[in-house]
């Protein structure tokens, strides 16, 4: 925007965006928005409304099936993005294999539903108890695998850890392709559609809540200190191995949960679904929203998922347009939409008192 032709620069020195930001209407909207964000009671109210809506929307078909499906994908993508943000944003590592953890969770969940559990368990009211357990099993399996990936992270950092996670993603895909018992390259078709909107809402809120509390816990401080300087935090008696292990396990746990939900929503999974392109999608959502920000993850996942659907009429061109938008966003806002900032809703009360003096936990980090 700064390199526009100078023929009308005599009229005003201000750039178009600056003039736009100075318009009184926009200013008032911004102020109102700011005031709204400061209301602490808003979050619980929104949560209750959201929960109610998640029951009401499928019940009374407030929006059509297609929009419902997109809303559920948004929820799953928020879970995936926020768990990836824990590693990439808060811990400052560069994990590029998040779809691998998702695959583990999805396959465990799908296998439990299609092959292990008796069909009677999945019918009637019993499913209300069985399905969360299936999802939890998917998460637990992914967490175990996350433990394996965390071990190399003790020795390697940065680009080399990126390779480890990348290789892990490809290994998971390759292993699944080579086991005929779980469908091999053909995948698992006909998974029961157990994922419903209230469940997606529940797991999404749980993921956001757990990860937020983790970030503001003692371990979370350790995670942040690892991002700033690993050696220094080691010297300050942060148990770096334990912190890394916990962060990886927690992140992969929620990725597995996202995977299990995804499998029971799409009803068909195959190794091809969880390749490196899927991981790239989550990376884009994290950096679009902004690293080290829960609000950013929620925004990033929502905007990316919805935008891809809104642009559907453009057909092939939307996949040309989307990366261009991403590039321009990175050029003009290299830290993403929220970039290390946070909605005040997501910050615990005790932090806000300290935060009056200085933004704790959000110190500048590159």
């Amino acid at each position, binding site marked *: 925007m700064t390199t526009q032709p100078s023929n009308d620069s005599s009229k005003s020195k201000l750039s178009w965006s600056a003039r736009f930001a100075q318009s009184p209407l926009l200013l008032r909207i911004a102020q109102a928005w700011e005031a709204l964000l400061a209301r602490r009671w808003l979050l619980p109210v929104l949560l209750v409304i959201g929960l109610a809506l998640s029951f009401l929307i499928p019940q009374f078909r407030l929006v059509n099936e297609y929009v419902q499906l997109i809303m559920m994908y948004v929820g799953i993508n928020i879970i995936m993005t926020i768990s990836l943000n824990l590693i*990439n944003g808060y811990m400052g590592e560069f994990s590029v294999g998040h779809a691998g953890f998702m695959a583990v969770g999805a396959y465990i969940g799908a296998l439990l539903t299609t092959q292990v559990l008796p069909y009677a368990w999945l019918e009637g009211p019993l499913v209300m108890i069985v399905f969360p357990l299936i999802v939890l099993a998917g998460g637990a399996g992914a967490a175990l695998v996350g433990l394996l990936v965390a071990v190399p992270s003790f020795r390697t950092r940065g680009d080399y850890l990126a390779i*480890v996670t990348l290789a892990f993603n490809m290994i998971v895909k390759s292993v699944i392709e080579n086991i005929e018992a779980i469908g091999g390259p053909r995948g698992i078709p006909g998974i029961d559609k157990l994922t419903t909107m209230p469940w997606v809402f529940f797991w999404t809120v749980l993921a956001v809540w757990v990860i937020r509390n983790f970030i503001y816990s003692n371990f979370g401080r350790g995670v942040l200190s690892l991002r700033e300087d690993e*050696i220094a935090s080691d*010297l300050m008696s942060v148990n770096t191995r334990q912190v890394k292990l916990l962060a990886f396990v927690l992140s992969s746990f929620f990725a597995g949960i996202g995977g299990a939900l995804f499998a029971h929503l799409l009803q068909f999974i195959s190794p091809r679904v969880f390749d490196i392109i899927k991981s*790239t999608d989550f990376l884009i959502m994290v950096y679009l929203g902004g690293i080290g920000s829960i609000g950013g993850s929620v925004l990033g996942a929502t905007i990316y998922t919805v935008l891809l659907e809104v642009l559907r009429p453009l057909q*092939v*061109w939307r996949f*040309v347009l989307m990366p261009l938008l991403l590039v321009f966003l990175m050029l003009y806002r*290299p830290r993403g939409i929220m970039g290390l900032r946070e909605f005040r809703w997501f910050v615990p009360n005790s932090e806000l008192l300290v935060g009056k003096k200085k933004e704790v936990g959000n110190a500048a980090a590159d």
Partner: protein
Amino acid sequence: MIYILQQSLNALQLGSIYALIALGYTMVYGILTMINFAHGDLFMVGAFFGFMAALAFKLPFIPTLLISMIGVGLLGVAIERVAYKPLRQAPRVSAIITALGVGIFLENLTLVFYPYPQSVPQLLQNITWTIGGVTVSSLQIIIILMSLGLMVLLDFIVRRTMVGMAMRAVSWDKTIVPLMGVPVNLVISITFAIGTSLGGAAGVMYSQAFPVIDPYMGIMIGWKAFISAVVGGIGNIRGAMIGGFILGGVEIMVAAFLPSTYRDFVAFTLLLVLLIFRPYGILGQPRPQKV
């Protein structure tokens, strides 16, 4: 024995292509400490440039290769100027994500023009000889020799010329070196031009060896070349060559003696094991960390 020799030849062919692409990754990393994730897609664009040149002008192999190299080199420089240069002071991941975005953009823009896989015309007369039971095709020989030639040329440029000296200087330090009169931006552009044109050359050679090309072919090969660069020690030019040949060798040998679906699995597991024992790659040196 003959089988092993035959497969070694195939391994050399694949390895030289991996090595050529890996050089692009490692050169850009060496000078900007940035992973150019669009590089795999520039390789794909190179294959398509070669395809277009071969179809439109009916050119023989060498001019096609040159057109593709020049085209991809210019594209690489343009991408660096537009997308990466403004981000030099930004956090490192922003540049990486931008590179990912550029890569996806290139893939899908190509997809708009070529929605279906294209088969590439044979540009070289393929003669096969049988030497002691091993079948050698002229195409294989040309690919291997040309890649080796390009690598030797690159090594010469980096180690023996003024431009190469400037490149090494810029990769060493970006604050002092400009004060010595080294035009940093020009050097970075030259690095991009050389690195990406090598990727373009690899694209043309690959499309001659495996003559069906599609817009997404660069993803997997790009990641594998990146892995080669890391195995060799990223930022190290000779390391990238070694890494490319190692990965090509491992892949071909696994496919030769095990079911070919195990190829990726074994290759990546080996990579993980290697990284656990040599976390900075084969030729890489751990950078001293200052506290």
